[in-house]
């Protein structure tokens, strides 16, 4: 089962939940965790594991073949992403802007823009007991997260088979990167905090997931701060609340040191186990 862990805003505790949930589940069953926040992956900070594979991920972008080019400039007109410029007798391709649609390459009358591999980022696959952890990091200067997210999910499909759960630690927000990370999830867990910011951004996240037609549940972090509005919102929207984590400074301290929470804080572990129980009783589970 593919479970996406997402939130409307950053800093609500998404990665904390994803990492702790995955490791707790991996104590008894085969689990995969994919860190799809490819701009700023942080899950790896909390997991000390053996590296199984490291790959440089690529995508295809056109490369100018000066010898075949007739300088007709058709490519500049074809490209909708300002990727190709013609400066006098030079054609310049800006790989960062390319969406890899192949139009310029395939429609060039002289075949002077063959598609070539360009570095997208790095994928690292780790293993710790029953957990396979895959983390991808976007190369600085590469602006689009979606291709790397898609490739990471594809990698896990073939290289991490037979898992009871594949957890997707999603990027924050509601942009197209988030949609790519949750597109083929079976279920979405939304993490929030009981404050007006949390409520507002939860609303945005719920809207997004409804757009994708995903079943979802909510987990509330730092219970006790703020007010009851998030709980009331979940009630009126018929969103199940699967967990309520307490507001404890010690949790923040463990997080700041890159430590797992559940081995050290019992109240946290209880909520985590309750979430796992809920996952186990989802339809579609054996």
């Amino acid at each position, binding site marked *: 089962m593919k479970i996406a862990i997402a939130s409307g805003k950053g800093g609500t505790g998404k990665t904390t939940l994803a990492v702790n949930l995955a490791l707790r589940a991996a104590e008894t069953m085969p689990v995969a965790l994919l860190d799809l926040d490819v701009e700023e992956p942080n899950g790896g900070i909390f997991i000390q594991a053996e590296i199984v594979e490291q790959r440089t991920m690529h995508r295809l972008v056109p490369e100018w073949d000066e010898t075949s080019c007739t300088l007709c400039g058709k490519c500049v007109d074809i490209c909708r992403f300002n990727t190709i*410029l013609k400066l006098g007798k030079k054609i310049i391709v800006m790989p960062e802007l390319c969406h890899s649609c192949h139009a310029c390459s395939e429609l060039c009358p002289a075949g002077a823009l063959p598609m070539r591999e360009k570095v997208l980022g790095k994928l690292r696959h780790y293993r710790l007991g029953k957990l396979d952890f895959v983390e991808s990091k976007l190369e600085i200067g590469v602006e689009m997260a979606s291709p790397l997210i898609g490739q990471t999910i594809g990698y896990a499909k073939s290289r991490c088979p037979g898992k009871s759960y594949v957890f997707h630690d999603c990027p924050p927000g509601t942009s197209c990167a988030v949609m790519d990370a949750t597109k083929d999830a079976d279920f979405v867990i939304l993490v929030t905090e009981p404050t007006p910011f949390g409520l507002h951004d939860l609303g945005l996240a719920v809207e997004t997931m409804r757009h994708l037609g995903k079943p979802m549940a909510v987990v509330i972090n730092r219970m006790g701060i703020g007010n009851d509005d998030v709980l009331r919102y979940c009630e009126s929207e018929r969103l199940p609340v699967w967990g309520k984590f307490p507001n404890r400074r010690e949790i923040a301290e463990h997080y700041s040191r890159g430590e797992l929470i559940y081995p050290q804080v019992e109240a946290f572990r209880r909520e985590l186990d309750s979430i796992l129980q809920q996952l186990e009783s989802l339809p579609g589970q054996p």
Partner: protein
Amino acid sequence: MKIAFTTNGTDWDARIDPRFGRTDYLLFYDEENKTMSSVDNREIINVEHGAGPRTAQKIFDNGAQVLITGNGPGGNAARILDQMELKIYVGAGGMTVREAYNAYLNNQLKQGVNNA
């Protein structure tokens, strides 16, 4: 030499726009003929990705050899301007074009990094 400025207006009293890619105007001063021309870059507000390179294309089309601007071009644009062997001077943000030109002549501006 032909000098390009990123500006918010079209004359010597206009202010240097600190941005490159999304600058409102480009001003070109031909030192030999002592003539001034300008390009209205405001259509750039409609461009999602690639504002820098698109503006760089305009610099090329107008044949400038020197660029005077504020903060300097971002990564994508910088790489293109580098290909053009353009000399970039930064730190003129907020000055009038006149002040910026004088600062350039008196070596008071910093040369910008041409590579991202």
